[in-house]
């Protein structure tokens, strides 16, 4: 293919995954990224793993506030309100 010289290597591609997800790649780069993933099994798996990683992050329970911390802050709130 004539665009061979402009191809992304796998090593370059893994650094562009977030830019790709965020829609931050310039159009040409975006097309090269997708063309690469289409014919490279390793990068296809890698991209899927990054998607899975993001999905798992989204399912993490959001940190709970320790009860003591909340009470202290509410205490401060009452102090403020009575000023």
């Amino acid at each position, binding site marked *: 293919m004539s665009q061979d010289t402009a191809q992304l*290597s796998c090593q370059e591609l893994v650094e562009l995954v977030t830019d790709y997800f965020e829609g931050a790649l310039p159009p040409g780069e975006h097309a090269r990224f997708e063309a690469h993933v289409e014919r490279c099994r390793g990068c296809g*798996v890698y991209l899927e793993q990054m998607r899975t990683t993001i999905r798992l992050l989204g399912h993490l329970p959001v940190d709970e506030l320790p009860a003591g911390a909340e009470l202290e802050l509410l205490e401060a709130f009452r102090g403020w309100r009575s000023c």
Partner: protein
Amino acid sequence: MAVAGSTEAQLLEALRAGDEAAFAQLVREYQPSLVRVARIYVSTQAAAEEVAAETWLAVLNGLDRFEGRSSLKTWIFRILTNIAKTRAQRDGRTLPFSALQDPGRVPEAALDADRFLDPQHPRWPGHWAVRPEPWPEDALIAAETQAVVAEAIEALPPAQRAVISLRDVEGWSSEEVRNALELSETNQRVLLHRARSKVRRALESYLGEDT
């Protein structure tokens, strides 16, 4: 994301009226993130918690002056950032501002170079030397896998940890994170990318153990 169930205007009104439930709701929503962001600037968890507590007081005292030119969330995080910077200065901490302002200065690859063939390789330059293998679907929903993700986040440098927590765990938009942390678009992406890459690596090393 607004605090669940009420609009920002309603929330503000309730806070100004001294409604404790409204304050409790706000605290539950933002306190963990405030502490995480404060950790970018101060060196201990205890100091970060103090910064967050100080922030809440400043928020309450500033409520009447808040004009809604930014979102309440952005405003709260700006206050936090200012207090955290002051605190860091007072503690004589050399501020790792470059972590936010120039994270790309120190290169950090998503994967070790030995995962790839040499960039000068005659036939497959920079191609996979060790290809990633698909993960077993059933392992992904296991509680242990969740624990691996949580541990990987905790192990990140503070700026990366704050960005990935806000974006991917809490579901903030890129713009909200940029505003709260005063980050450029590019720098936010760099931090997010590094953080996600490391969490993926932790998952790969955990899920690949049995194969």
